[in-house]
């Protein structure tokens, strides 16, 4: 059974909006698991988010060692245009993306300008490990009552690059994380992220 473009994507959007408003809080999209029977080499949650947000009016860029198949499928399903890192409205980071390519991307992607900070890239990033609220990153900022923990597979150097991309607030990038058990979490530009000592 295919995804219902009207009602299913409305539900995905509401979860996404709520999580963008409450950084670090996890949401589960497993209700749509059986419906996502598309042969695309990315997380099901990534595809759902792409279908929810992308259309012919926006552009995207994929970071991956083998990006062509995913690029073609996403373009075919959403009608969004593929664009360079510097121009893309959405940047999709697949599991196999290298640390160096993500860091480079965060330094070159759109962060908006002071008059129009909304002209910035939104990142959809696939975590290799399941997202959780185990201690790794400590998040504070708007949408968080006191503080919240988040655990992703991304290295401290990537979080360092993200901090640099958002340091001139209101300029910055907004991140949406996905994993292979259909969870999502968001870290908008307003969130202060500190990497906790681990191991």
């Amino acid at each position, binding site marked *: 059974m295919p995804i219902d*473009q*009207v*009602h299913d*994507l*409305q*539900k995905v*959007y*509401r979860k*996404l*909006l*709520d999580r*963008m*408003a*409450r950084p670090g809080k996890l949401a589960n999209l497993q209700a749509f698991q059986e419906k996502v029977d598309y042969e695309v080499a990315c997380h099901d949650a990534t595809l759902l988010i792409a279908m*929810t*947000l*992308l*259309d*012919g*009016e*926006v552009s995207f860029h994929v970071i991956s060692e083998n990006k062509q198949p995913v690029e073609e499928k996403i373009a075919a399903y959403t009608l969004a245009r593929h664009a360079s890192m510097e121009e893309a409205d959405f940047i999709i980071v697949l599991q196999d993306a290298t640390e160096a390519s993500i860091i480079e991307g965060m330094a070159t992607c759109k962060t908006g*300008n*002071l*008059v*129009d*900070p*909304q002209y*910035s890239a*939104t990142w959809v990033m696939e975590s290799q490990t399941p997202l959780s609220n185990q201690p790794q990153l400590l998040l504070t900022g*708007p*949408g*968080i*009552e006191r503080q919240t923990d988040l655990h992703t597979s991304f290295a401290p150097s990537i979080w360092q690059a993200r901090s640099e991309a958002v340091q001139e*607030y*209101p300029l*910055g990038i*907004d991140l949406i994380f996905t994993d292979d058990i259909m969870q999502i979490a968001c870290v*908008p*530009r*307003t969130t202060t992220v500190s990497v906790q000592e681990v191991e």
Partner: protein
Amino acid sequence: MKNKTHFAFFDEGSKKEIRRTTLKAVAIPGYQVPFASREMPIARGWGTGGLQLTLSLIGKEDCLKVIDQGADESVNAVSIKKLVQQTTGVELTDQTEDASLIQSRHRIPEVPLTEEQILVLQVPTPEPLRDVEASEYVTKRLHAEEEYSGAWLLLFEQIMKYGKTATGADHPVYVNGRYVMAPSPIPRFDNPKMHTSKALTLLGAGREKKIYAVPPYTDVTSLAFEDYPFTVETFADQACHLCGANDVFLDELVDETTGKAYYQCNDTSYCIDRLNSQEQVEVEHHHA
């Protein structure tokens, strides 16, 4: 022939555009994100911004409450409710606690909102600096440079003229310490309810083509001076003539025969709720 409309009136492309804008608005609290405001079957300035947000949000499982100046039954609220209900078939309510989506014109309900609710406010004039600067080109740059002297000056002039800040409604607020925002024409009484609210607040201005937002647990501070602190409207020793509430926002009405002023809750569903619970107590008491 009456065509059957698409679910929630809009085509999916329009919803997507509004949804992308809303996500950006949440990520930049208080910043007015431009969007392609659609033609609606109600006139611009009658809640089209709020209506477009509601239609982009709503799903079959939602329960919608619409209020207009505190009232669930006034014309603007009823027409918006009918339009949304006829195009989605969602459940309607006038109980604040039962609603998952609340669209409001110029009030935040008296009952505290929860984390599961979204408040959509209709905004006629989203630009807090419009009274000092007519040009959108310039106001966008003033926001970019965090140059808010104009907003302070407006309040200062009121103090010079009236001895106090005299904003009737729409008293400007600082959001997350960065953007000065028009909270829509809610009374000052409601401004503190936005501060670290549990619910997400979305604001939509259809005529001005702007969407902005206040995420939950976000600092919202009303502009004020050290020697003229922010104050809310007071209704000294007055209470609602129907339910007796005295800690809510009251409307001042005039009895036409005696010419005397009397007061009534502005939030009608809150008032009716109180009356019903009082009546319940009376009935139980009577039968006991």
